[in-house]
């Protein structure tokens, strides 16, 4: 009796063993490799990244399709792809500073102060510095200026404003005071950026006594950049 009981137990165990083995064989057959939890996490993040990239690419495709449609409709209305491309080049030129531009905006005139120095005061306090001009240009950009020039020099993204003693060098041209900044944009906002209490220009004017004046105009003319551009270090990335 005991022998039978033992044999039943044994067969039950073997049944369980072969059951799990078959389960494992049939299941694992497809692809079995040791995958740790960390690997799974890595793969998950990789998949997420890929998915995001795919999303970006789809968006890019959409954008390019829109452009294509634009070209197509422009072709129908304007008749020639040259026209479309030319207008695009004009836009690019306007943006990059190779075109004379005109529009409403303001003129800001900055001049050194006429007042006498206080006892022991730094004479630098009465002078317009390169930093002052930079800060005012930035304030105008914040106020929505689309194009800027200083003393007739178009401000490009690479334009330097360098202190050269009592003068300031912009686009390799050196100017003495007064400095005249022209900006095209919404005239009222630009004017406010210069005149608003608490603005940097107002501070220079009222605290240091520098002569800063701004005039609103409906037609500001800003000349194109008159130099040449040479790139030494950059090369465009292929396939962009």
């Amino acid at each position, binding site marked *: 009796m005991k022998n039978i*009981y*033992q*044999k*039943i*137990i*044994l*067969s*039950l*165990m*073997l*049944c*369980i*063993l*072969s*059951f*799990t*083995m*078959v*389960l*494992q064989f*049939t*299941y*694992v057959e497809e692809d*079995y490799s*040791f*995958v*740790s*939890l*960390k690997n*799974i996490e890595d793969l998950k993040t990789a998949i997420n990244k890929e998915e995001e990239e795919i999303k970006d690419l789809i968006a890019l495709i959409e954008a390019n399709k829109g452009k294509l449609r634009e070209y197509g409709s422009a072709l129908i209305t304007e008749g020639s792809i040259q026209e479309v491309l030319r207008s695009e080049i004009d836009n690019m030129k306007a943006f990059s500073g190779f075109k004379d531009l005109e529009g409403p905006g303001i003129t800001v005139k900055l001049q050194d102060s006429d007042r006498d120095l206080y006892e022991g005061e730094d004479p630098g306090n009465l002078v317009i510095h390169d930093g002052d001009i930079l800060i005012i240009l930035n304030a105008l950009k914040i106020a929505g200026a689309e194009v800027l020039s200083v003393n007739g020099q178009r401000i490009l993204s690479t334009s330097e404003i360098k202190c050269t003693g009592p003068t300031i060098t912009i686009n390799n041209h050196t100017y003495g005071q007064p400095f005249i900044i022209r900006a095209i944009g919404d005239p009222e906002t630009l004017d406010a950026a210069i005149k608003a209490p608490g603005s940097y220009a107002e501070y220079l004017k009222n605290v240091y006594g520098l002569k800063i004046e701004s005039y609103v105009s409906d037609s500001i003319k800003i000349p194109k950049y008159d130099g040449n551009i040479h790139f030494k270090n950059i090369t465009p990335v292929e396939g962009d």
Partner: protein
Amino acid sequence: MLFAIIGLVTGVILGLYLPITYPATYSLYISVAILAAIDSVFGAIRSILEDRFNTEIFVSGFFGNAILAGFLAYIGDRLGVPLYYAAIFAFGVRLFQNFAIIRRYLLDKIKSDKNNI
């Protein structure tokens, strides 16, 4: 012997036809557990040949070893150390030892049978 074969065959049939699945992550743990179970079975065969077979020891070893081996693999995974190697070595070595002993018993038996004839 008959009971053992019946058990194996029913297990295979059940495994083939029961629609049971588990996450692929656990397949390593189950593999190690299967190794432990095979080891127990070989141990049982050996003890039967030695007339020392004890059902309680066999059943507890079967499940205990399998669960411990699977658990070890899981812990190793979590710690980043492949601890399941420990189970593979321990059970693998014992498996071969048991098999060697079983072989000797069987060969002796065959020899003695021949001599009797």
